[in-house]
């Protein structure tokens, strides 16, 4: 019987389907495929093109593209938002690395993941950012996902930041937990900026360590700044970086 099964497997064509649009992924057999095995693809070329990867001049701190900003909104390779953080002495995050611009397509993807629970879709990103992941792994950063409040976690079923980190293959430590439970996305900018510390530090032996915070989107940076502050001030971390899928 196993022979028959083998025979079936032999002629069964495994077609990869795009996780976003569910269409068949056309893969052309090329020179690479003669010598090496290509990893299974999760995106079709059409969808891949819809992502807008961040490139060119970026803000040194928050990783936002500077090209589209008008000239008065940035200075010395830093955007005004970051300069404002600095002025208020609230800049604790050393550097944010964002991969994509938060365009409509990205909005749709994130909402599908977060609000409609398409957990698997998180897996499409890691192929596109292999080099960055390798960099953080090589530099021995300690990866910490931004936590959800318990209520939200139960509602959603998973933490999107944790899911992203997992998909990227980071070994994560849950060093933070949330004390506040109000939804961030329902607040205005000024409200967000005003909020007090929303995190609590769970483990304390972070002295002199390099930390990589993981989150889905960098919007105003409040969340990440808060987390950075607590990690640096209470935990004694040497450097705090962050990795987000998108920068709005």
């Amino acid at each position: 019987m196993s022979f028959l099964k083998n025979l079936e497997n032999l002629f069964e064509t495994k077609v990869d389907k795009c996780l976003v649009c569910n269409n068949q992924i056309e893969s052309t057999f090329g020179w690479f495929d003669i010598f090496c095995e290509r990893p299974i693809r999760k995106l079709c070329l059409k969808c891949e093109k819809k992502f807008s990867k961040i490139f060119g001049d970026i803000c040194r701190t928050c990783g936002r593209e500077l090209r589209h900003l008008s000239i008065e909104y940035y200075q010395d390779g830093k955007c005004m938002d970051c300069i404002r953080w600095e002025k208020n002495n609230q800049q604790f995050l050393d550097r944010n690395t964002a991969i994509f611009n938060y365009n409509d397509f990205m909005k749709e993807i994130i909402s599908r993941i977060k609000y409609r629970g398409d957990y698997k879709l998180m897996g499409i990103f890691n192929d596109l950012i292999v080099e960055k992941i390798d960099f953080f792994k090589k530099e021995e950063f300690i990866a910490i996902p931004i936590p959800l409040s318990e209520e939200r976690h139960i509602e959603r079923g998973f933490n999107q930041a944790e899911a992203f980190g997992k998909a990227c293959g980071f070994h994560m430590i849950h060093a933070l937990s949330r004390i506040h439970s109000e939804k961030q996305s329902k607040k205005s900018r000024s409200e967000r900026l005003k909020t007090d510390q929303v995190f609590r530090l769970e483990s304390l032996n972070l002295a002199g360590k390099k930390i990589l915070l993981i989150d889905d989107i960098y919007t105003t940076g409040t969340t990440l700044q808060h987390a950075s502050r607590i990690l640096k001030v209470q935990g004694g971390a040497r450097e705090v970086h962050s990795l987000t899928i998108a920068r709005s």
Partner: protein
Amino acid sequence: MEEKLIFFCAFFCVIGTVTGLQFEWYLVGLFCIFIILLKKRFTWFQLALFAFFFMTFFLNAILAEQLNNSILKGNEISLEIGFRKSPNIDGDSFSGFATDIESGERIWLSYKIQTEDEKMILEKNCLVGEVFKVNGKLKHPKHDTVENGFDFHDYLKRNNTHWVLNAQQLNHLRTENSISAKILQVREKAILKIKSTFPDPLMSYTIALIFGDQKQIDENAYRAYQKLGIVHLFSISGAQVGFIVWLLYTGLVRLGISQKWSMVIVIVMIPFYAGLTGFSPSVNRACGMVIILFISRLLRKRISPLICLCLCMILYLLIQPYQLYSIGFQLSFSICCGLILSQKILGREDRNPVSQIFIGTLICQVSSLPILMVHFYEVSLLGFLSNLIYIPLFSFFFFPMTIIIYFLHLMMGNLFHSFLRIGNFLFQELYDFSKLLSNTPFSSICFGKPSTIFMLLICFGVFFVLFSLEQNKPKQVITSFFVLFTILLLQFNSNFISSNGEVTFIDVGQGDSIFIRLPHNAGNYLIDTGGIFSIQKESWQEKVSKFDPGKDVILPFLRSKGIRKLDKLILTHADFDHIGGSKAIFENLEVEHLLIPTGQNEEFNKYEWFNQKKIDLIQQIVKTGVRWKIGDNFFEVIHPETTSGDKNSSSIVLIAKINGVNFLFTGDADLVAEEEILSKYALQVDVLKAGHHGSDTSTGKTFLERIRPNVSIISVGENNRYGHPSSEVIDRLKENRVHILRTDTQGSVKFNIKNGTFTTFPPYHKAQ
């Protein structure tokens, strides 16, 4: 997934077929290595499938080899034969494949046309479908008698032919009226029509581009195109087949026939088109691919071009394993495969059409490189550039023009005479331009025949380049080109690297030609160049491509050895059978020193090409005492001392001590010269080139007794009209217990300098 599987199946089919056709243990090793390399990427069941394909094609090739036997006994003196393709007629020679009606076996017929009228009849009529009675003797075809030469025996064998018939008489018996003969006639008659109505250059190109017969193209023009690396344009390409199919298919659909039935009609018609173009491998490949593609469409299956190509290849090899040897087959499949696998390189979105053509040409050039190297020993440097110009020129201008002219002519007849003249003029201009281009220096580089290891290295380099181009990482691309370049550079300098050298007595028929290559490229010398006397003939008997040992034997031989420059060309004396081939040598090779004997300057200058020699050549008139030394190797001219009237007796006689072995090259020196030498020198000779092709006027008794050679080589043509070598000389040599090696019976004789052994071509076991 499917693609990967079928690609490797096709790959193992090729390895299996090669192993079956010429069993070598390293091929089995290669198979095992590939299986081990692929172990992780495939299931055991798939690996078993590969092994199955390997074995099937291995056995298939062996079976083909076993079944490839002759029915004819060889003692038949009269046969009834028919032709499936028109034989070649050149001057008074008539030759080509013919089929013995009774046994159905194919033979090679060669016949000397007796009269001008007979030639007219043979040329003007369609011979396909006619039955002739021929009288003559069946002979075994000969292997190549020169290293790396054209092996006629193997060529015929791969065409299931085992006999050469030298016909004395050719008599027309009857006309066959079978359907198959009628179908075959269509092509021949159309070609005859073109031949009789079209003016010359246009005629040959029309036949080549429409009917796929390149034999009509002028030899010099062909050579020029070869140098430019564009001969492939004169064979019908896959693109042309695609064009025809597209025309037919859309035509049928426009006529209101359903797509399904249009496809069926195309599938049925395509084999006839292949037949019309003479079943050349590239056309067969393209037609096969079209049929597979359409069948898959009819079955409502999507099929990728790669699968289509691989299936086509598998089927082709299953039916005709011998085709693997055909250059057309190899080039067609490797270039097509190269282009299909490079889809990602070609389809990158940031490419504009110009860069796409550029990169496409590059891919074609790179993927055909190993095959061109192994067959032609040289790579056209201009190839890349000329393809960029010629491919668009041909596909958008000359090919459509030829088709239009041909069909207008078919419809309108002679009304289009001026049109023909314009077409003719354009082709003439094309030829003149190409000749100019091909004459630019460094248009092609000669690499010599690569060894198996180098072949594998070159293939690796080519893969690496294409792999890197696909990866699109600039650094890697540069590295890969650097690697390929290094491999080619090593091959280019293989003579510098090689610690082996040779002294080869080349079989040039009746005449002399000896090639000396010292280890590490320390010296490349050629003593004499052979030459065939041309007998006065009537104009109809005169061949267009006359056999010239210089052009047809020595140059290809030297090319295969990677010789780009002769340090010394020694012409012992001014007889035609020693210097006749030098014209081609001067025209095609760089010669640094030319050595001719004293007192024969005028005799040499009788031949026009000695007056037109290149300026950078240093001519030395030599006599006794000229000597030179390279490492431990020593050369000295020991004759002639003075000018004497007779050409033969004032031949240059050269002694050479190469790696401790003493050679004596005597030219045509006669008994008088021998005595003169004996009076002055006490010689110790190991290898003697018998003087004057073994004539009894040379190689005297006392001479032999004094110099005491161990081996004597007689450079002489088969059945020559002088009766050389004389039996007396043979007896004399035998009396002195000298081992005799003859170029007429044993082929070329090569002395390996490194290990001190003699090799003959063809090797002894093949010659039997």
